[in-house]
Structure formats: C-alpha cells, structure tokens
C-alpha cells in the first residue's frame, strides 16, 4: 500500500503544473466551505445566544416575536409597558432568583438607550457563560452616568467623561426632541461582544425617569421648570418596558411562565428567549441554504477540475499503464492508482483549504469581530466541517472512478505495446 502511494505521489510530482492547478481549486473551495460554515455558526450563535442563562423574558402582552425583537435586538418598539408595581411583584416572587429590567424607547444618535440597573452588569450572559466586561471605566452608580456599548464608542468616537444628550424616541440622525438640559456622563465602555449589546447606551432607570419628567415639565409648563438637579433616590419609576428573569430552580420555569401569562393585575407575557430565538433562526435559514448552495456549487466545480485533469492525463499515460500491466499489475490495481491519486490530491487540497480558512480568520478575524461575532479561532473542526471535508474526499474518490473505469478499458485495448 505504501508503494502505491509512493508511485502515485511520484506520478503526480511528474505532472506538477496541472496538479497544482487542481490542488488550488480544491483547497480554495474547501476554504470557502469551511469559512462560510464558520461564519454561519458564528452568526447563529451571535443571534441565538445574544442572551443566555435567562429563563424568561417578560413584557406587556403582545407578540412573542415582537417582545423578543425589541428587548434583545433593538428592533421595533413596545406598544405597552410593564408597571413598576407588577415588576416588583415578580422580582420578589419566591421562585425568582434575579431580574434585569429594561426600559426602552430613547436613543442617542441612532443607538438605542437601555434603562436598566446594576443587575445588567452582574447577571447578563451571552454565548453561554460570557458576561459583560468593561473595556474601560465601570458601571454607572449615579443617575446621570451612562455606559456605552463598544460599537457606540467606536462609531461615534466617544471617550470616557464625555456628555451624552439622549433623544426621546428612536431616531437616526439629529433628533428633534433632545433632552438638552439633561446630559449623561459616560463612565464606562463595554468590551465587544459581537451581539446587539454592543449597539446600545446603558443608563440607570432613575436617570431615564428623571429625564422624562423633566421633558414633560418642559413641554407642559416650561416656565415653571426649576432645573433642580437634586438627584435624590426618591425618584419614582412608573414603568419599564420588559425584564429578563432567572428562576431559582429551572423546574419552575414553565409554571412561572404560566402564572405570569395569567397574571390578574396586568396583561403580561413571558417567553423563553432561547426557544423563540432558535425558532426565529430557523425561519431565517434561507440565508443559510443560499450560502450552502453557493459553496457546494464551487466544490462541485473543483471536483470537475479534478475529473478533467485526470481524464486529460490518461492519453499521455497509456504507455505507463500498459507497462504496469506487463509487470503484473491487475486491472483493478491500475484503476486503484487513479483512485489513490485522486485521494492524494483531494486530501492535500482539503488540508490546505482548512489551513487557508483558519489563517484567513487569524488575519481578517480582528476586523470581523463585532460585526458577526467571531471572537476566537478554533483550529479544530465541528461536525458540519468534518462532514464537508469527508464529503469532498469521498466525492473525489467517486469522481475518480470514471477515469479509473476508462483506464482499465483502455489498458485492455492497448495490450502489451501501443500499436498505432
């Protein structure tokens, strides 16, 4: 067996230029397959794991998807709020471990503002176990302090200590109604997470409430407004938009979900984020199918190149093959040479392709981070990647059966010497 590989190997070296061409095709298409697979995986995990370790997401009764989209992805708006009283009720429910309140509806130069509390920094998890970290600064502790996501910092070039003027309503560009008298000061910038977290400004619930009260007073009775910025802790929060919730015991989730959905005091809705997110991703999977189709078409073309290379070499190798036969090689053995040859080329091709795809991430990964959320390069292969690679190897062997069949036919016809 070793000798078969040796002979095939030397034969390939003898035809280096065409072989290199074929190798390039196979390795590039493998690289494409693996890269797209990786991007898809990262996009999927960035999407479905934008929030993890949260058992329930609770908001005013509306659509499941709507609640999820505005709470997790900054998309769309809430039509109703959750009253502070109801929030307190569920926050203190014996089955509940912790909650993260979200108060939405304002923005800063196109990025949404999230009113929340210190639990956000303490408990929010994404992509499994990952928690929120600060690139610089720390969490807010005063009403007028703000923390910004990494994309906000990068795109708007904001540094620590700078003031932010939050706009009412989610608008892009210059806002009409800016809460001009009520700037927040940036005290922390978050590390990139590759999720929607990067694209928001985080302020304390109290600060947001204060801002809204002032803006009401500006419009209602502007002349009476006393500009009193005494930020006492007695600010009364009226409502929030939604909240994340973690149970003490996972067994409670379904029960709790049912009781929240049947809550008498206010029409609330609780959804299990992971489940809804996965379902949503499934609905978006035409994107995935498209990527797959493209990369498999490319892989198909590279196999075609292999086939053409092998078929076109046969004519030049007739003497070689008849000689093998005269020296005692069985027809199967001669056909086997071509199969080994195809295997060698495709094997080297996929190994190169794997290297190219991983090195690609080493070099372009840093630029992608935050956009699609590839944050670490894993050199190993996941199930789908193994599948792709094995598929290419097996198909190249199947493809080589065509020239293998042809060569055994030809050798039979040629006899011992070429008579023509």
């Amino acid at each position, binding site marked *: 067996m070793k000798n078969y590989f040796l002979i095939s190997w*030397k034969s390939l070296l003898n035809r280096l230029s065409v072989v290199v061409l074929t190798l390039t095709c196979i390795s590039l298409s493998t690289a494409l397959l693996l890269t797209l697979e990786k991007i898809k995986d990262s996009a999927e995990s960035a999407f479905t794991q934008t929030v993890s370790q949260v058992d329930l997401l609770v908001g005013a009764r509306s659509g499941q998807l709507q609640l999820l989209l505005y709470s997790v992805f900054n998309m769309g708006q809430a039509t109703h709020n959750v009253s502070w009283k109801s929030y307190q009720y569920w926050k203190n429910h014996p089955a509940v471990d912790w909650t993260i309140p979200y108060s939405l509806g304002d923005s800063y130069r196109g990025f949404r503002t999230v009113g929340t509390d210190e639990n956000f920094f303490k408990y929010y998890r994404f992509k499994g176990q990952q928690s929120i970290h600060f690139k610089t600064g720390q969490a807010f502790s005063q009403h007028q302090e703000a923390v910004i996501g990494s994309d906000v910092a990068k795109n708007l070039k904001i540094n620590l200590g700078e003031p932010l003027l939050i706009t009412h309503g989610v608008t892009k560009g210059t806002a009409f109604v800016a809460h001009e008298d009520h700037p927040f000061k940036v005290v922390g910038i978050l590390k990139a997470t590759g999720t929607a977290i990067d694209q928001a400004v985080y302020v304390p619930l109290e600060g947001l409430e204060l801002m809204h009260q002032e803006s009401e007073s500006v419009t209602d009775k502007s002349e009476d407004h006393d500009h009193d910025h005494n930020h006492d802790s007695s600010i009364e929060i009226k409502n929030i938009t939604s909240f994340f919730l973690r149970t003490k015991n996972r067994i409670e989730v379904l029960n709790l979900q049912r009781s929240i959905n049947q809550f008498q005091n206010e029409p609330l809705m609780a959804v299990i984020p992971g489940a809804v997110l996965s379902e949503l991703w499934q609905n978006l999977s035409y994107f995935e199918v498209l990527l797959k189709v493209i990369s498999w078409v490319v892989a198909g073309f590279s196999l075609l190149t292999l086939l053409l290379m092998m078929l076109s070499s046969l004519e030049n190798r007739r003497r070689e093959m008849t000689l093998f*036969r*005269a*020296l*005692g090689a069985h027809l199967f053995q001669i056909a086997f040479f071509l199969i080994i040859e195809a295997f060698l080329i495709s094997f080297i091709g996929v190994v190169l392709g794997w290297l190219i795809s991983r090195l690609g991430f080493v070099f372009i990964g840093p630029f992608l981070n935050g956009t699609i959320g590839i944050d670490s390069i894993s050199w190993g292969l996941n199930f789908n990647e193994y599948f792709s690679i094995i598929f290419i190897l097996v198909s190249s062997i199947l493809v080589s059966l065509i020239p293998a069949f042809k060569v055994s036919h030809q050798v039979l016809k040629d*006899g*011992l010497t070429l008579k023509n």
Partner: protein
Amino acid sequence: MIHAIDIKNLVFSYSAQSEVVLRIAEFQLQVGEKVFLAGPSGSGKTTFLELIAGIIHPTSGSLQVLSQDFSSANGDSKDLVRKNDLSFIFQNFNLIPYLNVEENIRLPFWLGFQDGRNEQQVTDDLQKILKDLGINSLQKKKVTELSFGQSQRVAAARAFLKRPKLLLADEPTSALDQDHRDAFLKVLFDLAQNFETSMVFVSHDKGLQNRFDRVIEIGSWK
C-alpha cells in the same frame, strides 16, 4: 513440467470479421530453451507474445503456458502467471519516467510480486544483477538521463530480478547499434542461463539468430 509453452491448432484473429493473424498447428518450447522468432513487421510477432502473456486469448485451439491453460478469456491464473513467472523486455519504453533506476527495477515487487525472498535477499540480488549488467553506478539515476543501451539493461535487470521462468522479448535490440546489440544479447543469455529461464526472442533482425537454440520463421506457421 514438460513444456514452457505448448500450442495445438491455435487460430487467432482480432475480431470475427478481421483476417486471421496467427494459425499455429503445433509449437512447443522446452523448459530452458531459447527460441528466435523471426518475421517482417506486421507478421504477428507481438500478437504471438500477447497470447503467451495471457493479455489476449486464442480464437480457437489450445494454448498452455507453464502448464496453465491460457486458451480461454477468463482466468485469474493468467494474471498470476504473468505476475509471478513471466518477464518482458520491449523495444522501447520499458521504464517509468518518474521513477529512478532502482525504483523501476523494484516495480514488480511493488505491484505485488512475491517469491519468498526477503527484503535483504532481494536487495543483494539486485546489486548482483546491476553488477552483471555493468550498471551498478546508475542505481539512483533518473531514467530520463540514461542512454538507450543503458535503459535496455535496466529493463533486463528488472526482468531477471524476478527470476522468471519465461522471458518474452519483443525486439529489445532493434534500436541498438551492432556492438551494443551483441553485448546486450550476451548478458541476456548469461542471465537466462543463470536462472534457467526459457526465452522467446522476437525480432525482424536475422543477424542475431545463430546464438539461439532454435529459429522459427513466423511465415512457416501459416
């Protein structure tokens, strides 16, 4: 074994429509015998060797090679005989261009030839044959750098490393000049003597025939 080759009433044509190429009422090759088969180009000499090699089979009649029946189309035994007991030397293109001299000589072993000798014995035998043929300095050389005479000697080395029972040579000297031809024939005979190899030597060059045990004019068969 009585005969290396035994033929009775053999008829061969390439297809039912085409002319009969060979018609041999009777032919025997004794074990150890060296026969010179003469005939002009296109007279069927190569076709005869292919029949003996089991690459094609007789249209009718019986053909036995080394006591194995070669008369019918089927038979793994023909492949086995070819692999284990036959060697060939052709007029040209005896060597695989991308393998070096030694690799070319070892090729039958790589393709599955086995006769009970171990690695070391084969290597020793290889060295000895290279020496007998006067090409031991070429062992690691690329075959594309050899002269024609050297290539034929490498082919002879490969043929005899197998210690074949029967050597089929198809005009191996036709591209050599007179001096090289005689020298080459001499080593071929010495090696055949050494390994008790029977030989069918095919050529249109009658100048070589007096060294052989027997000379057959292919035209005499028809």
